[in-house]
């Protein structure tokens, strides 16, 4: 009995000690006053130095939390119980959050730095007039490939993914709209097609790609490509940038028929308790120098046109990640197709996956 009690006491003592250290650390970190904002972002999606800079500049402490999926983030916000002041959903999630009435309309007079955002990335179908969101990072869907493992194939066209030489080599991202989108793009249809006829044609064509498909997976593909264990992958430009930074043999291309243009966007959710602080934070993140530093840290493409001049020429001139206007013409942003059509996409994709091998 005594052994049990002393063990319990020891555990309490240790946790008390850790709590104390924690308290000290938190107070050392947040030298600022009682004003705080809570930021909910993807993991590793901001330069931590910028948070410190913001705290020092504005005297607002930043509580920073991370999530790993749009759906998870939305679930938390919808349920409440938290006080997130700023979060960063992808474009389709912005639309879903708007429909569920989870967002606060933005007041541009409090975000003067919005002028630095490339007008090309403003006023897009998922959020007309940018009523609720401001682009944070953007990118494309394309093909990452490793020429040293291939026999001279190139991927200027989506059709090359059907090439018999790629048998059992292609890795697809596990996402219905991206994969069916490839087929839609290759047939010249819109990525937002709701026509059952077009979708049927697309999935029929997709099924003939079957023998080439080695796997349908998620984020693990980055590591496989880096380790030269895979040679071709359908992926997002952000992931491709990660691959290239680790293994410079890898190349990334957006086929000429066009592709998807994706965005992650800053929004203020309804749960916000410090809206003034949220505006200050958003404005701070849109500052050209801040955005430049952030883009270099994260490695994704920034929509902040003024930031480009503060960045390494080598990054901003890389047309794989900063395509010129002509290349952008063929890019299409996802629209929210509604639950029913989305269900059709998912079902077709599931059928395709089950038919593999």
């Amino acid at each position: 009995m005594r052994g049990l009690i002393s063990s319990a006491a020891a555990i309490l003592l240790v946790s008390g000690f850790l709590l104390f250290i924690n308290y000290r650390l938190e107070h050392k970190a947040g030298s600022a006053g009682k004003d705080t904002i809570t930021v909910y972002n993807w993991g590793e999606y901001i330069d931590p130095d910028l948070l410190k800079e913001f705290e020092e500049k504005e005297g607002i402490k930043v509580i920073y939390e991370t999530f790993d999926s749009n759906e998870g983030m939305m679930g938390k916000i919808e349920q409440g119980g938290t006080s997130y002041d700023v979060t960063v959903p992808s474009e389709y999630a912005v639309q879903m959050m708007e429909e569920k009435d989870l967002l606060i309309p933005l007041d541009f007079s409090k975000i003067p730095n919005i002028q630095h955002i490339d007008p090309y990335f403003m006023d897009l179908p998922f959020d007309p007039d940018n009523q609720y969101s401001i682009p944070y990072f953007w990118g494309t869907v394309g093909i990452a490939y490793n020429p040293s493992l291939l026999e001279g194939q190139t991927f200027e066209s989506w059709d090359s993914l059907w090439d018999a030489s790629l048998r059992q080599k292609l890795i697809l991202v596990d996402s219905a709209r991206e994969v069916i989108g490839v087929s839609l793009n290759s047939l010249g249809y819109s990525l937002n097609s709701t026509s059952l006829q077009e979708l049927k044609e697309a999935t029929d064509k997709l099924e003939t790609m079957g023998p080439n498909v080695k796997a349908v997976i998620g984020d693990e593909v980055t590591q496989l490509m880096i380790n030269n264990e895979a040679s071709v992958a359908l992926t997002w430009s952000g992931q491709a940038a990660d691959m290239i930074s680790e293994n410079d043999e890898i190349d990334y291309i957006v086929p000429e028929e066009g592709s998807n243009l994706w965005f992650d966007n800053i929004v203020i959710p309804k749960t916000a308790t410090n809206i003034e602080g949220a505006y200050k934070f958003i404005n701070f993140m849109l500052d050209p120098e801040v955005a430049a530093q952030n883009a270099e840290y994260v490695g994704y493409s920034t929509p902040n046109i003024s930031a480009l001049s503060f960045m390494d020429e080598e990054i901003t001139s890389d047309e794989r990640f900063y395509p010129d206007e002509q290349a952008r013409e063929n890019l299409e942003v996802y629209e929210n197709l509604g639950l029913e059509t989305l269900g059709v996409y998912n079902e077709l994709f599931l059928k395709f996956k089950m038919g593999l091998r």
Partner: protein
Amino acid sequence: MGKLSSLPKIYLTLVFVILYAPIFYLIYYSFNSGGGMSHFESFTLEHYQAVFQDTRLLIIVMNTVIIALLSALLSTTIGVIGALAIYFMKNKSARQTILSLNNILIVSPDVIIGASFLILFTLIGVKLGFASVLISHIAFSIPIVVIMVLPKLQEMSTSLIDAALDLGATRKDVMTRVILPYIKPGIFAGFFLALTYSLDDFAVTFFVTGNGFSTLSVEIYSMARTGITLTINALSGLIFLITIVLVLGYYIIGNKAKSPQGVRK
């Protein structure tokens, strides 16, 4: 255990290699200056430095440990009382029912438990954060503790209690001097299992964290999209090292305490 022929030895070695190889692989790359896990460039300690400079990460690690310790302690206490209650329950069918309910909680998926807690907490207006994480960790650990303690109780001969009562022990004495010492190994096993469950739980924790409170598993999972940095390798290496030191320490202390009393079979 004295004479092991070579086949079992090879088998055991193989098992341990499989168990430990990923951990050592991870630690090996924590010294890599190359920034990734693809190829080893040169030796560096910068990732370890980064761990200690990243206050946010340190706070998260501490949070994780505090939650694990406290939730394991509380769930062990509650679980032991629960196991005793089940053991002394007269009504056989009631006992069976409660035990089944306990087992259902063990096999129910974490996501379901997490989502239920999220809905519950927001319904009754509990702010998500330290308290909500602690409560849910205690909740999913209790059934495990019960399962660890109950066999110890059942294995205990009832004549021990009868003998103690015959010799004039009060009910309190029976509890503190006979039953609890007897089931102590079960209690510790339950505690350590609850501790590990709490340390590595992601699914439940993700739903109930909030307002700046986060644990290591949630933090690491959220890095999946942009890639996990070598800082996490370094941190894992440190945690692994601390665990080894603690386990070794536990054995040394345990052996010292035991030796004067002589041999145990």
